[in-house]
């Protein structure tokens, strides 16, 4: 049965001036019928990993509910920042970047999850590659939970691809739990067609010494939403993310990244590198949230946005929230076109402006692509970027 989608997503953790239009994103589609689609690997899951397929979205969130007290523990009562928006996502089993409306979408449409559980102390060296080639006109949703038990390590790569001319809708929810000293490396690569509406929603939690390393490339799609919310709940946990994006023509990209730092000596680093062309529109919200008890924690958020057209719209909302004395939070942004010095240098080497731009686009995106631990997917990305530029 088809229905209309009208979702409020990527809500900024604190509301600000309405005229900036950054407080949230809107995902609106008329008359759409969603199919539930599991993304499967061509290979068997490696040893040390158990896969349970087609688990209901609700049931798949059980590991988070079971650890809720640890995930959301606070040393002392908090003083809320002005106009906090946390309440609307309270019902989620684990808070995600895009928020409660994505959970509701999956629940209402019978969305299921594939649950990957990594055994205690299992170090899975071979990445789990989940590749989805989508057809023109496909409209569907998928979900995964990756639960890395104590001392384990796993790498999961999700790659979505379609013909350049294809249209459709593809929404993915991925929830992550890294227990004590466990590491989850998650890679997401999106190379969808120019008519695709796409969302990728990530929520995660790290217990003591747990690590979530996220690499994301959002290169295709007409209207793209991406969000990640990671709770660094316990001591010495960390969240490192590297996101590369390319938005061109009349495409739009709306992002919301949050590191919720609760444990002592937690470490968050969020790096965004991207290129805007044509009449593309991009909104990036990035928040470091140092909660009470996060003493000794550090957070760093850097954005490098290359604007290659007169008509792009680039909105950036870098937020630092802090209720802890002993922390170091930092944000930096460089937004603009290619520097005159760089262009001059290139020209002295016989490289004209257009070629210089091509080189810089490739350099930015390939620096993120190099982090993909799978040669085939990496080459797919490099080829895709080459085709575009």
């Amino acid at each position: 049965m088809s229905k209309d989608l009208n979702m409020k997503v990527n809500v900024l953790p604190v509301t600000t001036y309405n005229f900036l239009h950054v407080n949230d994103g809107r995902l609106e589609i008329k008359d759409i019928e969603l199919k539930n689609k599991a993304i499967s690997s061509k290979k068997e899951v490696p040893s040390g990993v158990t896969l349970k397929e087609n688990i209901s979205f609700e049931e798949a969130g059980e590991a988070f509910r079971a650890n809720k007290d640890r995930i959301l523990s606070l040393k002392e009562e908090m003083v809320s920042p002005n106009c906090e928006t946390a309440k609307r996502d309270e019902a989620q089993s684990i808070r995600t970047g895009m928020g409660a409306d994505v959970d509701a979408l999956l629940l209402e449409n019978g969305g299921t999850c594939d649950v990957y559980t990594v055994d205690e102390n299992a170090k899975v060296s071979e990445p789990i590659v989940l590749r989805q080639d989508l057809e023109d006109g496909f409209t569907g949703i998928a979900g995964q939970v990756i639960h890395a038990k104590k001392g384990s390590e796993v790498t999961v790569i999700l790659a979505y691809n379609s013909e350049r001319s294809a249209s459709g809708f593809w929404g993915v929810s991925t929830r992550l739990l890294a227990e004590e000293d466990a590491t989850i490396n998650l890679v997401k690569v999106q190379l969808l067609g120019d008519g695709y509406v796409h969302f990728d929603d990530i929520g995660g939690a790290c217990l003591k010494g747990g690590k979530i390393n996220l690499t994301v490339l959002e290169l295709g799609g007409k209207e793209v939403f991406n969000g990640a919310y990671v709770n660094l709940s316990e001591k010495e946990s960390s969240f490192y993310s590297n996101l590369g994006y390319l938005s061109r023509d009349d495409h739009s990209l709306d992002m919301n990244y949050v590191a919720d730092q609760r444990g002592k000596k937690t470490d968050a680093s969020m790096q965004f590198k991207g290129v805007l062309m044509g009449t593309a529109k991009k909104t990036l919200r990035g928040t470091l949230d140092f909660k009470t008890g996060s003493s000794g924690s550090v957070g760093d958020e850097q954005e490098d946005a290359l604007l290659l057209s007169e008509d792009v719209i680039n909105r950036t909302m870098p937020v630092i929230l802090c209720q802890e004395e002993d922390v170091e939070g930092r944000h930096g942004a460089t937004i603009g076109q290619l520097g005159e010095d760089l262009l001059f240098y290139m020209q002295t080497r016989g490289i004209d402006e257009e070629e210089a731009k091509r080189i810089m686009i490739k350099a930015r995106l390939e620096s993120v692509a190099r982090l993909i631990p799978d040669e085939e997917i990496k080459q797919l990305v490099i080829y895709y970027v080459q085709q575009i530029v």
Partner: protein
Amino acid sequence: MSDNKQIVADIDHSLYDFKDIENEKDFYRMEEGLTEETVLKVSEEKNDPDWMRDFRLECLKLYNEIKMPNWGPSIEGLDMDKISSYVRHKSDMKGKWEDVPEDIKNTFEKLGIPQAERESLAGVGAQYDSELVYHNVKDEVAAQGVIYTDLESALRSEYADMIKSHFMKLVPPTDHKFAALHGAVWSGGSFVYVPKNVKVEIPLQSYFRLNAAGAGQFEHTLIIVDEGADLHFIEGCSAPKYNVANLHAGCVELYVGKNARLRYSTIENWSKNMYNLNTKRALVEENGIMEWVSGSFGSHTSYLYPMTILKGDNSKMEFTGITFAGKGQNLDTGAKVVHQGERTSSVINTKSISKDGGIGTYRSSVTIQSTAKKAKASISCDSLMLDSISRADTIPGMDIRTSDADVGHEAKIGRISDEAIFYLMSRGISEEDAKAMIVSGFANPVSKELPLEYAVEMNNLIKLEMSGNG
């Protein structure tokens, strides 16, 4: 070392916290609440021209229609039904200190305003509750053609048309609920006009004192700096502390002409029952320069984001601000800038200190419109946390609509480093003094932009805080 918590006392407002009794014989106080009747009464008191009376009523309508802001600190404690929008002494405004009523004169003497006028100012305006009680400008400045007077007098002078064409044009009453409120009940404030190519060498100052309990102050400052002219305007604010809410919803509109320069400095030290919902905005023409220096120390709750519209090509803006949020304070401050002209540039530098449960929020917006080719914007905001029961939040926004712009942004949040304290202590400086030195150093980029007298006062205030219980 890391366990040695910094203990910093609350800001000592005793200097400002004296209350002068306002009796019925000498003071007129309008009943609390906001109705068409009260707005008409204010208008009648002011002897408004017809257009202003109609404008006030239109603003009241807007005030009733516009919703409360859905962002920023809570203003639930503010009940307009308990606020009197107009309180004035029954005497007229004076041009000599000797003629100012004794009770009011005492207040300003205690605040050191007449002394400052004698020593370092070109002109002074002093507002007590809703009305200007004193206005004077030095003869040599007046001789240059500089107009510095209360806005009401200006409305009935040869400048009436100039005021009509500028009043609430930069901050329209539709801007937000409290701009509409201001439009409805504004009273007092100053009008400054600096003619073409006139450089006013020493600053002008307005001092605002809200002495009445449960009252609002809604002064309007309109400054027009004509082509090639230069002015430094200083604004100071204070009030005694009451346990009922007071409201300040002033409005400042600044017009900076071609090749002109305006520096607008504010030291705000309202008492901690004050809701400071002030709106300040500047429009800068070609090659013009707007400089803001802003120190926010007082108020219970503040929404304060001076905005600059860089309309003319090559126009520039610099904002330097410090906010000190202590116990019971929720100070939401920052700056807004809109780049419209080509090669416009803006620099925002802010420092925020949070202590003893205070909430300090830096909030800003930088908008670069598609017409602002080769615009440059640089934003730097640093926050210093002095304990873990306070908050320091940084919420900056950027909206960039041309590739031909260069925007850099840096934000840092942290505490006083143990290494720095250790280094200073190893040089024989006590821990308290070391911390005070570091905080003063942190605030230095702001204090160095202030006139000496104000910088000294600000540094003394910081030192006092740091040594309090250290």
